[in-house]
Structures are given as C-alpha cells and as structure tokens.
C-alpha cells in the first residue's frame, strides 16, 4: 500500500492565508540579495525574530513558458522534448515565487544555509507549453527537528482555475530552534534504510550511472535560476564549507525522473529525499526498481555506497 506523498494530501494554502498577487515572476537575483540581507539580519544577536510563518501566499497569474527555456531544461536533464512540462520544470517555474515568500521580512528563517531535505511533487493534470499558468506559493508546517527547524514550502500551478501541479519542498534550517514539540522523522535515515534494502535485494550493480561534470551546477543554475554559490564553483562553495561545488539536489532528482521516462505516464507523483550532497565532478550509481503496481523506486549512491538520494516515481493510472 503506497502512502500518498504530501503533494497529494495538501489541498491549497491553509485557511486564513492571504494571497498577494505579484505583477510578474520576481527575478531570483534580486531575491537572493534580499535573502542574504535577511539572513544576515536574522543572525544579528538579540534580534527578535518571528516564530511563525507568514500567513501569506504569493501569486503570479498568466505565466507563459518560454519554449527555449523549456528546451534547455529538457536537454540538460535528459527529458524528451515534449510540450508537456516535466514536474521538475514546474518546480523551476514556481521556485522564484516560493523564494519571494522566503525572503519576506516576516519569514522567520535565514534563506542562506537552509537545506533542502526532501521534495514531493504531483502532476495532477498535464501542463503544457502554451498554457497560461497561475503560480501560487506559500510556506507551512513550521516544526521542530533534531537538528533545527523544518518547514514545507508549497507551490501550486493552476491552469484554467484548476490545480494541475503541486510541489512540497521540505527545508531544514540547521541549528535554528524556533519551536518546540515532537521532532519530525529524519529524512536522511530513511534514505539510508532504503539503500540497505536495495543491497539485500540481490541486485548486481547499478542500472544507471551519472557522470556529473564540474559545470553541472552552473548549467542547472542557468535553467533553474537557482544560482546558490554552493552550486556554482569550488571557490564559492568553499566559502560555505564545502570542499567542492555540489550538485543541486533537484537536478539529481529530476535526472532520476527523466530516467524513468515515458513510463511515469502523463500524471504522476515524484518524491525524493536527499542525503549526502553530490560533490562535483562526481559519479552517482543509480538503481531503479519497479513494483507490481508500476511504482518506481530509485536510489542514488556514491561508488563507495554512501547514499545521495532516494525516492519514488508513481504513475497515476
């Protein structure tokens, strides 16, 4: 029995959320500057910070996809050149709108240093190039975690007033303890458990190998707009404590989604949990298994067996 991912169980912003409509999709560059400033402000000792998420959703209406942008994304990730938007591309479209929520002054956590630990997204109806897309993003479910504070960043894409895609990104603000209460489960441990299940299944070797070049971070940064310095170069990554640049987690998850390919069908759920970051350049051995229900699970590990990511792709028959 498959447990439904949060992207299927969430149904729109929580009650009482105020929707602020932006005139257009905000530029991520500017958002990062604001986010960095906000992060710095949040670190000023004695500064009082909010302990609740803003009950605000940002919304941009009538977004049109640029065909060149879609093509670049598809080529980079190994998706087919279909006019149907891959779920990962929907995530890319919604990302700036979601980021705009996270750089609000009333957002309680620093943008930089937040770790993307898990993601779930559902294509509920096929979204096509040429559709007018209404993108809505909000944050919810601020909760305590062993190593800090977690929250979900949610986004929906609606076509003709009907939600066609929903994504839930779970972030961890490491070492920030804002709220009490029961700690949520640790994503990393579940990835590890998954991986060991794989080893015992008797499979020999990986099905697929990704050889990631040093410029993969820059390339995905270009199509996603996510130019976080930790992905851009070894130098900029060192400034944040990484020995080399690391691959975008969503890049690796989207590669896995592309590997499953056409058999995910027109509508599907796609989940990922991230473990150790993938240092660039690097190699990831990925195993795919399918169950009788047509659900795919995948797990990517380093050549020494350390887990990088694991997840599912579940067609909605």
């Amino acid at each position: 029995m498959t447990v439904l991912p949060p992207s299927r169980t969430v149904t729109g912003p929580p009650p009482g959320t105020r929707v602020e409509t932006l005139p257009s999709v905000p530029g991520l560059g500017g958002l990062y500057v604001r986010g960095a400033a906000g992060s710095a402000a949040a670190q000023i000792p004695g500064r009082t910070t909010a302990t609740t998420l803003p009950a605000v959703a940002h919304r941009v209406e009538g977004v049109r996809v640029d065909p060149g942008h879609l093509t670049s994304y598809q080529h980079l990730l190994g998706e087919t050149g279909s006019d149907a938007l891959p779920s990962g591309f929907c995530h890319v479209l919604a990302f700036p709108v979601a980021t705009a929520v996270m750089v609000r002054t009333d957002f309680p956590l620093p943008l930089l240093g937040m770790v993307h630990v898990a993601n779930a997204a559902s294509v509920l109806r096929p979204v096509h190039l040429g559709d007018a897309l209404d993108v809505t993003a909000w944050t919810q479910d601020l909760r305590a975690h062993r190593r800090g504070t977690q929250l979900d960043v949610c986004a929906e894409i609606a076509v003709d007033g009907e939600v066609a895609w929903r994504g839930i990104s779970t972030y961890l603000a490491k070492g920030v303890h804002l709220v009490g209460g029961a700690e949520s489960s640790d994503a990393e441990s579940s990835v590890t458990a998954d991986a060991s299940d794989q080893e015992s299944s008797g499979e020999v070797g990986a099905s697929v190998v990704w050889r990631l070049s040093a410029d993969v971070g820059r390339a995905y940064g270009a199509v996603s707009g996510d130019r976080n310095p930790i992905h851009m170069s070894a130098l900029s990554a060192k400034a944040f404590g990484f020995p080399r640049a690391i691959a975008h987690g969503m890049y690796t998850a989207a590669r896995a989604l592309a590997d499953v390919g056409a058999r995910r069908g027109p509508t599907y759920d796609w989940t990922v949990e991230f473990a150790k970051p993938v240092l660039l350049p690097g190699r990831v051995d990925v195993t795919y298994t399918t169950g009788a229900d047509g659900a795919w699970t995948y797990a990517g590990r380093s050549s020494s067996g350390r887990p990088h990511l694991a997840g599912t792709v579940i067609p909605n028959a």
Partner: protein
Amino acid sequence: MTTSPTPSSPREAYVLGGNRIPFGKVGGAYARSSNQDMLTAALDGLVARYGLQGERLGEIVGGAVLKHSKDFNLVRESALGTALDPRTPAFDLQQACATGLEAVITVSNKIRLGQIESAIAGGVDSTSDAPVAVSPGLRRALLTAARARDLPTRLKAFAKVRPADLAPDAPRTDEPRTGLSMGEHQAVTTARWGITREAQDEIALRSHHNLAASYERGFQDDLVTPYRGLVRDQILRPDTSAEKLGKLSPVFGKRLDHMPTMTAGNSTPLSDGASAVLLGSADWAAARNLPLLARVVDAETAAVDFVHGHEGLLMAPVHAVARLLTRQGLTLGDLDLVEIHEAFASVVLTTQAAWADDDYCRTELGLPGALGTIDPAKVNVNGSSLAAGHPFAATGGRIVAQTAKQLAELQAASPAAGPFRALVSICAAGGLGVAAILESVPTTEGDPR
C-alpha cells in the same frame, strides 16, 4: 530450387556471396581511411569477385554506426565510387551493431516481395575516423554566425563562446540512458549468470584459433579482399593461448561485488572495417551463373528493457531467437551452425545459459521450459568478433557471408542431406537483438552447377 513470385506466397531470397576488407584495429591500418573509403573497397571487391561491373542492382542498403554528418548518403556515395552501374539506388540504415544483419533482412524482404531482384547489404565503421562534434555552445555560435547577415552580428555570436566550449565532443559509446559502457552492462549480466573467467577465455581462444584455421584452409580467400596493405584481420592472434589470455587484467565489472572476469582478451576491441553481402532471387542468380549459398529463411528483432536493470543490455537476442524458433517450429537441436556475435566472450555464454535455464525461459521468454543447449562445436566455427574485430555495422555482413559459405560447404559435402540450417544472433546497443535463420540450398539432381 527455382521459385517465382506468386500472389499468395512470396518467393525466396538467397545469399549469393560476400566480401569484406580485413578488419583493422583502432588507429591501425585504416587510421586515415573514411567510412566511404572502406565501404567502397568492400563493394568493389564484391563486384570484382562476382563480375558485377556495370550491373544495375536492385538496391544497396547499409550503414555505419559512427557517422559524420557529411556522410548522410554514405551508401549511395560509396556505390557511386564502385564499378557498379551508377543507376544502382541505395539507402542508409542504422541499427547499432545489428546494422549489417538488419540490412540483409531488409533487402531479403524486398527480394521476397518481388520489389527487387538483387541487392547488396553492407556495413562499415571506423573508430579511428569517428566523427568528433563541437560543443553545443560552439555549435550554436557557429550556426548563429552562419545565419548572420553582417560582421558585427557574426562576431557577437562568438562572444558567448566560453573557453570550455572549444573542447571537442568525442563520440560516446556509452549507453545514452544509463551512462554505462557496454562492457559495464555486460559485466553485470555476466555476474548475474555466474559466468567464469575461464569459460570466457576459452571462448576467446577458440575464436582466434577458428578464424586463423579458416584463413589457413583458404576459407576466407573468397570472403576477404585485402585493403591498404592489410591482408588478415589486425587483431587476430593465431598463437594466443589460455596462459596468455589468463594473464590479462580485468577491465570491466571492477565496481561490482563479484570478482571481475572481463578482460581485453575476452572482450572485442574497437575496430575499423567494412563488409558487403550479395543477395538475389534464384532467377537473377541463375542468369548470372551465381551460386545460391544459402536461403534467408526468417528473422526476428527483439528489444529488452535494460535501462532499469530488469534485463541485461545484450540479452535481446535471447528473446529474438526464442520467438524466431517458435515461429519456425524449430528447436536449437535443428541447427547445424550457430553464430553468436562475440561482442564479449561472455555474451556467447550468457545467451546459451539463458536458453538452458528452465525458470528463465518460462518467466522471461514465455516458453513451456528451457529452450535447450547447443553443441559447442557448432558455435562460431570460423571464429567471430573476438578474433576478427567488430567494426559495428560491418559485423552482420561478415557473419552472414561466412555462415552462408559454410552452409554451402556442408551441403556440398553431403549432397544427399540437408538442408543445413544456421542461426545468426547479434546483440546491439540500446538493448536490441537481431536473429536470422539461413538454410543451405540442396542441389537438384542433374544440375552439377
């Protein structure tokens, strides 16, 4: 055995002969030869052997796996360079390592349908002169500049080119969807079927010895035409031994938990070469006094889902052969010759292991039980790719021509018996597998020709 087309039953297509150039090793004898050079040489040798100068053939079909974009019409351009009538049409076809065999099947079907009377099926590949592409960044700049109407726009196009874009994009033989080389894929399959190093080395040894012996007895005299000073296949090692093969270090499967078993000795190296097979209807052959070496009976192509690890990349022929034999009402025991393309020695072994596995044949092939086993003395009797080399698209033609000749020899040695039957099985990139059945042509009484 003359047949004429009737509305209800297609007529027969026959292999009449073949020719190839010796296969060179990468960077070897043909380092500076292009695909077109080599294919033309193979075609010209065929024309010379069978006296086809000035002949307008029905069609020439063939291809190359690694192909320059300028070679968009490779086979036609090659044909124009031969002594054949320049009005002989041609087209390119590509099915990875099965290109040559697929070309044979394609023209056979046209002959059977009465669309053509004669054809050449061919294939060529050069890993020495493989196409090297420019990076996507440079390509975009070049194309933009080419379209530009003035110099500033043209220069602007190049402003976006980064130093890294100047590095060429070498062709990759890795599977595009898995990033694994064919050897790494087969290493997984080899381990899965528990194939030993010793068994693989034995296959390699026999391949070299069988091919060398075929040269020695003159069998290859009318199958191979030297080219560029190369008289025999460049990787052929008649003097190799189990000891020599046993000393080589494994090159594939080193990341697996299992002991790696695949070495440079029991894996086929990259090669350069070309081959061509002459096919025709019985009437066409008779009018030109050409021998009917073998009848093309039937063929089957299969593909497996290797991307997600369910089945081995090179296991598709296992499926193709099962379906082909079922359709023909044949068993492995009905075969007198079996040619299993030696992409790796272990392919010969995993293929046969799968056919002998009752459970596998039931669940994966949908058969009532194991397909069976084959007498090793019937397998690759004149050597195969491990000894000859494997210029991808040229391999099918090599196998079909030498198998047809071997069938004709069997038939000639036992005129009262037969027909003798051969199975050709070729695995290909992309999880593809192609199989075909050839049959000798019993000589009718009173016709010593």
